[in-house]
């Protein structure tokens, strides 16, 4: 199942609470954007992105929260909430928090999804290199005999490279890696995102994730989030790219569902 289909399936879930079976607990989320809450995004960030050459394009402004995902990065220093939205299939509002402070609010829409069909295609995205190792052959009497040494091979998976480009159709615009430092490839981050949908069902998404950014002006940037995602498994089923833009929390209006929990 591809990612958009997965999120769409979550969005289609209906849950009719009864006195015997009450509504499942909603995930406490910043801005009270829990499952079932309505969310309105002002058009200002979209206008600014578009006016400054952003690729993200038009994004619907009115949404319902269909699922909430959570994970931590940077040794637990930053907690991310992915607020999956009804109007952006596979897209979400990402809220990054350090302690109790919101440090970033970004809106991501699904850019493209790739489903590699063989190991070679997977290697394009995730190859993590190979250390040097000795080669052996079977010698007299079946005893292994060292015949040489294969030199180390540097990792060259695309996810984690210092630069990632947009699609050719969008002019192959370069985005610079914004997680990790250095000018060499680094291994993707591997958070496990726990997603809870409207019906209270859990899905665990195992990511191999990296984040890229390109400036549009001195104050406005566009983001590219890429992840090889595995659903309730360690084997990824596809590589997903999202385009994102910064949204000021003041440009968001949340209408919490009646039983939305308070956010600590």
């Amino acid at each position, binding site marked *: 199942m591809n990612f958009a289909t997965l999120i769409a399936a979550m969005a289609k879930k209906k849950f009719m609470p009864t006195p015997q079976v009450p509504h499942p607990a909603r995930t406490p989320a910043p801005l009270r954007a829990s499952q079932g809450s309505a969310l309105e995004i002002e*058009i*200002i*960030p979209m*206008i600014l992105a578009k*006016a400054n050459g952003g690729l993200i394009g038009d994004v619907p402004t009115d949404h319902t929260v269909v699922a909430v995902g959570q994970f931590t990065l940077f040794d637990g220093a930053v907690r991310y909430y992915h607020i999956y939205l009804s109007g952006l299939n596979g897209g979400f509002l990402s809220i990054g928090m350090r302690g109790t402070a919101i440090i970033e609010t970004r809106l991501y829409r699904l850019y493209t999804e790739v489903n590699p069909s063989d190991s070679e295609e997977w290697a394009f995205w995730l190859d993590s290199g190979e250390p040097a190792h000795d080669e052996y052959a079977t010698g007299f009497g079946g005893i292994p005999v060292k015949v040489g040494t294969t030199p180390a091979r540097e990792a060259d998976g695309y996810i984690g490279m210092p630069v990632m480009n947009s699609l050719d159709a969008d002019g192959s615009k370069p985005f610079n890696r914004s997680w990790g430092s250095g000018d060499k490839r680094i291994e993707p981050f591997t958070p496990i995102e726990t997603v809870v949908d409207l019906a209270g069902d859990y899905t665990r998404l195992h990511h191999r994730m990296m984040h890229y950014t390109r400036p549009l002006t001195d104050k406005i940037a566009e983001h590219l989030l890429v992840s090889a995602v595995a659903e309730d498994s360690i084997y990824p089923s596809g590589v997903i790219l999202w385009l994102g833009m910064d949204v*000021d929390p*003041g*440009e968001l209006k949340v209408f919490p569902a009646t039983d939305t929990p308070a956010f600590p």
Partner: protein
Amino acid sequence: MSNFSFLEHMGIAKMGHIGDQLTTAIINFDPTTASEVDIATYKEKCDSIEHKIAESETAVATANTTMTNLQAKLDRACEAGKAMKAAINAATDNTVKTQLIEQANVVMTQIKQVGGSSLDGLTDGDLFDAKDDLARAQTTLTEWKNVHVQMIGQLKSAQGDLKHAQDDIARAQRDKERAQARARQEEADAGLRSGLGASGTSPALAAMQAKAAKLKEDARAATIHADAVHQTTHSDADSIIADVLAKGTPAPNVLDDLNKL
């Protein structure tokens, strides 16, 4: 507005009955006559002012964040408005132009809501209100701090006065004890004097005089005895003693003394 009139205002307007009590307590406090209990009560009032200062600081921080966020929102909305203007001017297709104008109206509504009629938040609008709230919160904080400084001053003054008074009492007590001790000593001395009779001569002097008289008598006896042996020509004891004494201590030879130099 004086600090106390500020307090009266705040006491009535924002702190209700507790505020009235506080205001009354502060105004009625007289550092020069305050007792230890008065000072302790006043210290409690001081602590409650510190609490108000902390609350005011939070209010200032909140108002400041709100104002900063609104300013940022207005800046972004204005930038979006300029972009819309350029897009509308550049649009040739009427349908596109109409859509852009609709969007521009939404943006302008945002700008007016935040920036008010002047569009910059200087006369009205959310940003103007936020600035006003911030200024008010800052004024309140400053006033509370001034009141606190004044109260601390009064408290220290009262504590100093009280300490001074306590020192005075202790000093007076010591003076009294010393005076009593002196009086006791004088009484004892007076008792001793009365025991010595009317002549007023001390027993030591009397003993010395008695001893001198005895020595004189002994000397006379010795002289009489000597005269009897050497047949002196003196007729009275005093001249005999003088003679003996003169003989006993011969005039020094001046040349001998000079030789010692």
